[in-house]
């Protein structure tokens, strides 16, 4: 992609334009000592950052897209001159789908490599494992996944949505659109689905005036949903609200289809299916069902078209881009903006400068960092098509992140 003989691709031209117009170019470059008072891995020409995801083990399926997006963003930033005139160098570590390994590698990146920022983690479990390391060693983590909320740290920027952003607007829409009164909540049995459903139940009962006719959890890795499907048949809910994840997810949608439960007979909304998952489930099995996410690959705006093209050019035409992949892509850009605003790589300065950072170039559209270190973002509802892409049928206003929703806990 660094091939200079080709004409510049659209995103490069756009980014170059942005750099020039915002004056963030090469003027006023400061020496390493000035921009780095705490011994980070910064020289006059380079700055080192870490990427910490699972590229082996069960989570590799989900985290690969994030690694690709973060590398793409960093390469693009380097191509337009780097951060404070310094080229970004990547030190990549493998969390190996194992939470203690995540903590150990995080410590290595901070204590031994002194990286200026880390882009990484995917599951809440891995984030919880590294959080004390980042807080004790004073590091900076950019975390891409939509998650259950109930957390806030000076040392973490959450680039995905917290639960209320993802859940409430989606439920409002489906209740209105389908005139839904009865809901059946299903999920895998761990913290994220349980917390999400707690918020969903509260909203359905208190705000929408509906009823929850069933709430159920299946162990992670469960592959048989026959009984659940029969119960849904019996209860005939207006909406099934699903947060089943991982390998179970594929079994769940395939068996729904096989049981004759198609979108014209049952409305299902999920908060755990992105383009990545549809690849394994098969578009024909998801056709007509809804996902509530902040980003879909099919978003029709200039930023996103450039992003999708650049991503495919870099990682192959078969690549798909899901919600978390896009959120991971934002990480390096938000960090760059914060460093430039602070005029320093120091963690404290970057953390302080992060609030109110705006990004108009995000593929999902405009985003802004809240002082609680989450992002203002929109919620979109996508309806899946047979080709594995979603048609966006609803887009909310910008939603304020609220990781500690009152009365919802």
């Amino acid at each position: 992609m660094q091939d200079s003989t080709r004409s510049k691709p659209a995103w490069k031209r756009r980014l170059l334009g942005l750099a020039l117009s915002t004056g963030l170019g090469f003027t006023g470059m400061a020496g390493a000592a000035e921009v780095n008072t705490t011994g980070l891995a910064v020289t006059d020409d380079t700055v080192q950052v870490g990427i910490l995801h699972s590229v082996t083990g069960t989570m590799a399926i989900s985290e690969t897209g994030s690694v690709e997006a973060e590398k793409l963003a960093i390469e693009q930033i380097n191509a337009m001159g780097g951060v404070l005139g310094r080229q970004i160098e990547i030190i990549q570590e493998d969390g190996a789908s194992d939470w203690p390994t995540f903590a150990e590698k995080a410590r290595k990146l901070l204590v031994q490599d002194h990286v200026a920022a880390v882009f990484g983690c995917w599951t809440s479990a891995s984030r919880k494992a590294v959080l004390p390391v980042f807080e004790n060693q004073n590091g900076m983590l950019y975390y891409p996944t939509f998650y259950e909320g109930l957390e806030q740290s000076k040392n973490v920027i959450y680039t995905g949505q917290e639960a209320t952003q993802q859940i409430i607007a989606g439920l409002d829409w489906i209740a209105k659109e389908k005139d839904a009164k009865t809901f059946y909540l299903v999920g895998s049995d761990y913290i994220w689905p349980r917390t999400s459903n707690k918020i969903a139940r509260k909203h359905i009962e208190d705000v929408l005036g509906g009823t929850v006719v069933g709430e159920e959890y299946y162990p992670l890795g469960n592959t048989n949903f026959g009984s659940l499907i029969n119960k849904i048949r019996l209860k005939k809910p207006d909406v099934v609200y699903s947060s089943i994840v991982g390998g179970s997810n594929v079994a769940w949608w395939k068996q729904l289809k096989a049981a004759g439960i198609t979108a014209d007979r049952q409305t299902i909304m999920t908060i755990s299916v992105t383009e990545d998952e549809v690849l394994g489930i098969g578009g024909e099995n998801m056709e007509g069902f809804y996902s509530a996410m902040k980003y879909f690959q099919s978003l029709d705006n200039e930023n996103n078209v450039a992003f999708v093209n650049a991503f495919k050019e870099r990682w192959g035409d078969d690549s798909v881009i899901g919600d978390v992949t896009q959120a991971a892509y934002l990480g390096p850009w938000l960090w760059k903006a914060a460093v430039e605003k602070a005029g320093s790589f120091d963690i404290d300065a970057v953390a302080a400068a992060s609030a109110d950072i705006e990004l108009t170039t995000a593929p999902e559209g405009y985003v802004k960092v809240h002082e609680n270190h989450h992002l203002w973002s929109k919620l979109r509802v996508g309806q899946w098509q047979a080709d594995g892409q979603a048609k966006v049928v609803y887009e909310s206003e910008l939603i304020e992140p609220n990781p500690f929703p009152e009365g919802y806990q």
Partner: protein
Amino acid sequence: MGGYTSQELTAIFVMQGFSGLSLFCVFLLMALGLAIIFGQMGVINMAHGEFLTLGAYITWMVSELATQTWPWMQDFYFPLAVVLAFAGTFILGYLVEMLLIRRLYSRPLDTLLATWGLGLILQQIYRSTFGPREVSVTMPDWLMGSWAPTDIIDIPLNGLLVMGITAMMTLLVVILLYRSRWGIKVRATTQNRAMANAAGINTQRVDRFTFALGCGIAGVAGAAFTTIASTGPTTGSLYIVDTFLVVVFGGAASLLGTVVSAFGIAQSQSILEFFLSGSMAKVITLLTVVGILMFRPQGLFASKVRR
């Protein structure tokens, strides 16, 4: 239950019964291969799930070939995929026995570790070859959807397919074990290895074939399960715990035990899931199995074996 017509309740009863049966078939198909290997050789094959995964990936490759290269084959590729899945995993099993298992006989703990390591290696090979993401096997049209004998009953076609394959494989194993020369040798080896050796049976060859056959059955299971669940590098690990449970509960070395145990666990799980929730059903099933095993450590149907 209030508010439902008797017709609706009958329909649910039928569909729930079918759902229990199809879970039974999944368990049995998975446990069959493991049971004959454990029963005869005393080898606990921790890589059993990865042989299943290989079968699933072979099915996926055949389906990709069918949809992309020979579209006319799309409706008929599945039987071919099953045969190739069997062949592929059989050959791999044969090689593994020859290169690895054979050297570790009479060291059951070491085979446990070695096959576990093999499982990890295979997982990473799948990940490096096919990518870490799950792949989707394109189903032929005749396998999609459900069969509706009445207005409100829907029987999943892929469930019927898994049932058919399970019945076929079980029959095949029974015939091989009880109606073939190889079966006589296997049973002789199982009962008394030294005497079988003395009587001129090449027990090493019997072992190798048994191991390969067990792996081959796992491959067929993998092909069958692509129709109902996921295909990814770690697919096998989704099934492996239940499979061990079935084999241990049934009593090693007993085919009947495996069948009965698969049936019992599947039905209780399926019924409990209906009245409680998925996680609670699992907890109660596991507790019951543990409780029964405390009184019958040999499993339900322990065969009398001289060792």
